[in-house]
């Protein structure tokens, strides 16, 4: 049981929990925020598996751009009451 196994187990548990919450929850904003958290946990997984190129790319794209274009699509729903 060295540090690699402990970190690997922790990251795996967080991956599955965040994915379940993102898919099952009823509100749209909760799904989007947990998708962003899942993306950041995947960045930690990439850094653990010795892949720095992929980790930098996923951090820049998954945190800023994907979350922004999701939120920009649902920000008009507050008046219509459509699940927000």
């Amino acid at each position, binding site marked *: 049981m060295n540090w690699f196994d402990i970190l690997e187990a922790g990251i795996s548990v967080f991956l599955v929990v965040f994915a379940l919450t993102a898919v099952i929850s009823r509100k749209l904003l909760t799904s989007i925020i947990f998708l962003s958290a899942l993306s950041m946990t995947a960045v930690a997984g990439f850094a653990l598996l010795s892949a720095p*190129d992929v980790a*930098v*790319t996923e951090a820049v*794209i998954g945190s*800023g*751009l994907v979350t922004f*274009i999701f939120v*920009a699509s649902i920000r*008009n729903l507050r*008046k219509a009451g459509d699940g927000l």
Partner: protein
Amino acid sequence: MKKIFAGLLAVAFGIVLLIGISLNTGLFGYNDSLPEDGAASHYISKDVNGKTDEVVFGETTGAETGSANMVTSVIANYRSFDTLGEVTVLFLAALGVSLLAGTMDKGRKRSGSGFILRTSARILFPLMLVTGIYIFTHGHLTPGGGFPGGSMIASSFLLLYLADESFRANVKGFKVAEGLAGTLYVAIGIVGLLAAGYFLVNFLPTGTVGNLLSAGIIPVVYVIIGLKVGSEITGIVADMFNEEVKA
């Protein structure tokens, strides 16, 4: 009823995947070494064309690709045709977004952002821009490359859009830059075809491994890809701001 059926289908697909993977390589362990005669070993030891010397950082001149970052040498030299295809797919996606959502300026929301937010966004914007440019010009020495560098440039423009409601980027200029960069990439390939016989071959001399001006054509290709991806994603972000949905 629909959820039960969906759950059963997903679990059935998952059982097929799990059985297949555990019979092939096993679910709970990693490789101990890469296979000796596979493509990955040849790309690591840089002997695709038959040269068999060792490549040492800082000393070898005239190696096969000359870049210190092996992932970069795979993307921009050994598998450069796949990168051309990926650039085309991203171009098609940006084209679709701008055709469907490109009505100009139907009134953005009047949210009064304060003075501190606007000023600090204007201070952060050149820092993010320079970081993005640094990442894609040093793509052959440090992790990163054209794709995260261009995305960081687009994120800096997104910061300005979010902080200041009267900021309009020059979208026409970005579209011109994107088209020019894509054409330049194909033009480099055709120059390679005329100069040395293969499309997208590395025809500039590769210097010492580890210098900034080394690895032949790879820094040029990454600068072009970085500018192209940056202007494309900025165009997508600007188009997402334009259209307002009547609620």
